[in-house]
């Protein structure tokens, strides 16, 4: 799980954590919010009070494996 050398070649130098962190926080939140709307909104939880989002992405929700009904 950590280091192995099955595939040979040179690995790139790691990107400094200081550079990653702001991106990770903002973009990460945005991505998770997007996934929330596809996967959970108007099912188990609800921000908007309609069923439109749920119904629109309904098939994707089932086929991506989210619990649905």
């Amino acid at each position: 799980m950590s280091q192995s050398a099955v595939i040979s070649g040179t690995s790139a130098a790691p990107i400094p954590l200081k550079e990653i962190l702001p991106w990770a926080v903002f973009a990460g939140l945005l991505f998770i919010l997007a996934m929330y709307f596809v996967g959970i909104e108007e099912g188990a939880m609800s921000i908007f009070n309609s069923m439109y989002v749920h119904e629109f992405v309904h098939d994707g929700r089932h086929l991506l494996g989210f619990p649905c009904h």
Partner: protein
Amino acid sequence: MGQLLLRGMLAGLIASLLAFGFAKIIGEPQVERAIALEGQAHSHSHTGAAETQAEHSHDGNAEAADEPELVSREVQAGAGLLTGVAVYGTALGGLFALAYAFISGRLLHLPPRGTALVLAAIGFLVLYFVPYLKYPANPPAVGQGETIGYRTQLYFAMLVFSLMALAIAVSFGRQAFEKLGGWNASILGAGVYLVLVAVAAYALPAINEVPEKYPADLLWNFRIAALGTQAILWAAIGLLFGWLVVGSRERFAR
């Protein structure tokens, strides 16, 4: 870093188009069959609402029209499916890029394309396949509306346990790396992960809301389609992201 993120999202978007193609061709017939079956059974409606706007029929199956349709089946199976998979895939690609930035050169000392592929394989196993083994995807009308909150909590609990197990396994593997070497440390890490998720899966309550005498082939085909959709998504993200990250000279080298 911004470049990396954009590449991740691009890889995710292209991958989601492939996954959409598979879901559309292989998955949708199962969804249609499940909905037709729901119409015949008349057991419960999706939303529990009354038969008010229920003029629209599911592919000529008039009995299926016992629920109000905000979005027609055609849109759900076309634009809706595409949007859902594309948004999910693009976001997944972005998160993939973030994870790649964290582990590349730290946890994995491989060239970019190897790192991306290993990350995709681990991501698929940990974030999808293991939770799926405990709480597999179900076609429409399997699963009761009242338990959706409970089922969602359990699904995400399994997902979080799987992720925590990975973190513990990685830290075990890293500690053992000096003493045991790469291969053995990796096997130890994998073993630790498997034991932890097995315990979690055993401890969490089982859910089976599949109705009596539900067609087994439909359930199997649907679950294979769902598994395939995610497998294609992850595999394509891993390969495309790696391909986009390396320089163009390396990209077409033997």
